[in-house]
């Protein structure tokens, strides 16, 4: 009896130790990356990095203003393309489709989100770059937009389905058509979650490099309009980090830090959205 009990206690202690160790390792790795980025990136970050174009090869100094703006434009395009399709597709899946269609959409979305990002890049290359005969922001935005769709569909679908059916019935019982009930009661009730899901999907593609390599390509100058190749932070990090120049490698650290701060800002915005506006809901 007591041998069994001490054995149980031992197993308990061992499991506590192992799980705790793994959790600590995870936290340590993340903190290590963060610290490293802040330390090296912070040292190389200065005003001209944020405001100037890259200097010609061989000259030190200069910045990545064009890449920062480029990433912003790419994300804007990705949002304009991916969010409406994902949102409306999610609404269809949760509210209007039959069981088989819903299963099909969810399954396809899961498959699509598992497709390697470089394959999405090749797809956008074939679809946009080849007909246009040159790299462009548009091609990069389409590649990122496609990657936003599955996550947005899934999160929209999930948040809509978590709205209690009694709310739908309440609206329908007033003689409201199904679409209006969804648009005026169900969607508003799930809106915070739906917006959060879309923003997180965008944050996830903000750091994608592979699909941009042969769609948006890169550019050492400003990229006016939407049909020119553009610099972006992830591709600049890639190019600068593998370069033989010390100054470039320092700037790669700074670019990585900026990308991290961008994600942080997005995440904080999402937290804020989630916490505000709770009043009407609970």
């Amino acid at each position, binding site marked *: 009896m007591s041998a069994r009990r001490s054995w149980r206690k031992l197993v308990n202690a061992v499991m506590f130790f192992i799980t705790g160790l793994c959790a600590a390792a995870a936290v340590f790795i993340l903190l290590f990356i963060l610290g490293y980025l802040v330390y090296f990136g912070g040292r190389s970050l200065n005003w001209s990095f944020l405001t100037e174009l890259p200097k010609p090869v061989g000259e030190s100094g200069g910045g990545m203003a064009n890449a920062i703006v480029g990433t912003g434009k790419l994300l804007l395009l990705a949002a304009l393309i991916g969010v409406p399709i994902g949102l409306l597709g999610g609404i269809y899946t949760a509210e209007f489709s039959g069981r088989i269609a819903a299963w099909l959409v969810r399954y396809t979305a899961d498959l699509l989100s598992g497709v390697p990002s470089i394959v999405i890049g090749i797809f956008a290359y074939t679809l946009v770059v080849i007909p246009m005969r040159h790299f462009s922001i548009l091609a990069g935005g389409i590649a990122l937009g496609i990657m936003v769709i599955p996550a947005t569909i899934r999160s929209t679908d999930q948040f809509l389905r978590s709205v*209690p*059916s*009694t*709310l*739908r*019935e*309440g*609206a*329908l*019982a*007033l*003689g*409201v*058509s199904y679409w*209006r009930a969804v648009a*005026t*009661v169900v969607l*508003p*009730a799930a809106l915070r979650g739906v917006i959060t899901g879309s923003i997180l999907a965008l944050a996830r593609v903000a750091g994608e490099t592979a699909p941009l390599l042969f769609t948006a390509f890169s550019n050492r100058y400003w990229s006016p309009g939407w049909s020119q190749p553009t610099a972006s932070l992830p591709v600049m990090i890639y190019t600068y980090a593998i370069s033989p120049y010390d100054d470039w490698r320092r700037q790669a650290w700074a670019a990585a830090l900026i990308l991290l701060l961008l994600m942080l800002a997005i995440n904080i915005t999402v937290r804020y959205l989630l916490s505000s506006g709770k*009043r*009407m*809901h*609970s």
Partner: protein
Amino acid sequence: MATAASTDIMPETTFHHAWDNSRITLEPKIEVSDLNFYYGANLVLQDINLSVPGNQVTALIGPSGCGKTTFLRTLNRMYETMRNTRVTGKILLDGEDVFSIDVTQLRRRVGMVFQKPNPFPKSVFENVAYGLRINSRLRGGVLADAVERSLRRAVLWEEVKDKLHESAYSLSGGQQQRLCIARALAVNPEVLLLDEPCSALDPIATAKIEDLLFLLKSQCTIVIVTHNMQQAARVADYTGFFLLGKLVEFDRTETIFKKPSRKETEDYITGRFG
């Protein structure tokens, strides 16, 4: 004497007023004949024949799973939101076949209040204004007046007039249920269906809703499903007793409770089962 259990062997022509309608002198608001309801392959309601008198309170009682809620949901076709359901038979609203009326029109005429209060995640004002905005496109002062009128009809105005723009969830359960009644009343339904509206409420909130039903019956026809026989006895002019998917008996409430003509009804009312 005709009874529900025997309707299946009776010739069709005698169905309609199987319930000794000589005593029901009022104009019927809803007439149900030969109603069958299937959920998948299960027959949930069988041969329901019933006339709901206008401007009266009609209660439907019976043990859990007897089909009374399902029956209520056929009257405004709310059952259509569930998959795998099928209805045969006829339901007439003022002589009009409800299955040929546009469903949104039907539900504007036949409002519904649910078992659990289900206010929308909006303000008190917006909850009541919801149906008005969509159905009648009222705005501004006219809309505000209509909202106040509906809240007064639901005897809720005095309690919420200072917090019209707070979340509906800040109200108590009983207030939320009266808010749902106000929301349903706002579109001026001819019939109000209530599905066990007090089952989640305390006795005081229940009493308020019962008083309210008494006030409302001059303005619309009320059909209420209830688990609580005392409640049926208190509020209803007519009562129907459902058992195992059949309407066993329908009559004046007094008659049902004092001298029911069917053994099953008497057993249920005296608490021998159910």
